[in-house]
């Protein structure tokens, strides 16, 4: 099926309806495998089993940023290519990305508390991640406040492109500033510094999280298309009664 078919909401709905159950099942399977591998991975000699929060914390950080990446592509779709489903994708991705970012902040906070003695520090990595959450919430606020969906879409698209500057800040914050947060250990020049027995479950969990994102994204887009249809039907209902 050509990609251009996806531009048609009805065909998209049909595709989404077929894909979502399979993707959901696949997500569960990969999560099961990933959690199993994560439980078998060795404990940290200092932190003990607490280190395993990492298997939630790190992937949710990545997915939080991926969500904004999806919104950025959608923003270009709205402003540059005028793809009909671009704003639907953007609106759907925002709460999902926000949820992953919030999960990242909460798991990180719980993980850091025993070591740092506090639930929060205002260091560069944590602060830039919090800023990302605030940007997400701001975008969601615009979606909910502006009445007309297409005007909201254009405003959000601009906001998304501007906010995308936070993503490299988050990534490089541990390099550019003195932070309490640990430095880059997975994606760095010269290869990862993590032992494969931990790295492998981490990647499996990352794939599981990504599948979860895709499943939720498709479901959210389906909901948004249906919501817009309800709105159109209501407008038609009002004009049908003289």
């Amino acid at each position, binding site marked *: 099926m050509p990609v251009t078919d996806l531009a048609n909401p009805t065909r998209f709905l049909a595709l989404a309806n077929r894909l979502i159950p399979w993707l959901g099942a696949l997500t569960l399977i990969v999560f099961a495998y990933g959690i199993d591998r994560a439980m078998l991975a060795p404990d940290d000699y200092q932190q003990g089993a607490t280190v395993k929060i990492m298997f939630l914390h790190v992937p949710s950080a990545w997915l939080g940023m991926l969500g904004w990446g999806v919104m950025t592509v959608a923003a270009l779709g709205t402003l540059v290519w005028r793809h009909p489903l671009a704003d639907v994708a953007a609106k759907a991705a925002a709460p999902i990305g926000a949820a992953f970012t919030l999960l990242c902040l909460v798991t990180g*906070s719980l993980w850091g508390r025993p070591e740092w003695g506090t639930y929060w520090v205002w260091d560069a990595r944590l602060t830039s991640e919090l800023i990302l959450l*605030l940007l997400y919430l701001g975008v969601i606020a615009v979606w909910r406040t502006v009445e007309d969906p297409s005007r909201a879409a254009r405003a959000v698209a601009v906001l998304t492109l501007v906010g995308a500057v936070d993503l490299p800040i988050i990534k490089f914050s541990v390099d550019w500033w003195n932070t309490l947060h640990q430095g880059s250990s997975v994606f760095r020049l010269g290869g990862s510094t993590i032992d494969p027995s931990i790295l492998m479950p981490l990647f499996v969990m990352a794939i599981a999280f990504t599948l979860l994102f895709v499943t939720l994204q498709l479901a959210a887009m389906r909901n948004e298309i249906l919501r817009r249809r309800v709105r159109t039907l209501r407008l038609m209902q009002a004009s049908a009664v003289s």
Partner: protein
Amino acid sequence: MNPLAAILIRDMRIAIRVGGGALMGVLFFLVVVTLVPFAVGPDLALLKRIGPAILWLAALLASLLALDRLFTADHEDGSLDLILMGRAPLELVVAMKGIAHWLTTGLPLIIAAPLIGLFLNLDPPAEAALALTLLVGTPALTFIGMIGAAIAVTLRRGGLLLAVIVLPLTVPVLIFGVAAANAAVVGPVPFGTPFTILCALTLASIVVGPFAAAAALRQEME
């Protein structure tokens, strides 16, 4: 149905359905608190000390935001005309609008405050004291604020005038709210002293606010 119940239910319905509802105020609250470490630096000991004050200031500003629409929305669509033609006393109608405003703006702030206090490294006793002072003090912010909202009702750019009028009037609430929140953590003043004064301020504002706001609304309608 009782006219006062009718307006309370209507205002709450609108507040919950429109825009971001209660969450917009909480988001603003969070944003203001996030700005502070950028301004004063990330020293956690300092933030812990000024935490209650920051949270009170942020709650005050967030409350102020929603006050702008308290009467102007009704004025703009002609509802205020009809409200004035109803048989329920305007003072009570205004008080009901104030209660709806507090339930949909103040109460979410009170619930969010302890969580946001974590960002400022507050300890549990400080969190508890802060939540209690906000619970008692935020109604005062609503009922004092409505006076400014009524005065500014016919103005297009009423928001700034509203802030200029209302903020000085809320200073006593701010003083005793922060004093009570701090007293619970740092001695030597016992928590009860500023707290009871805060209660008194709130009770007084619940009476004075609606009368002053109703008088201002009647003036503006001519």
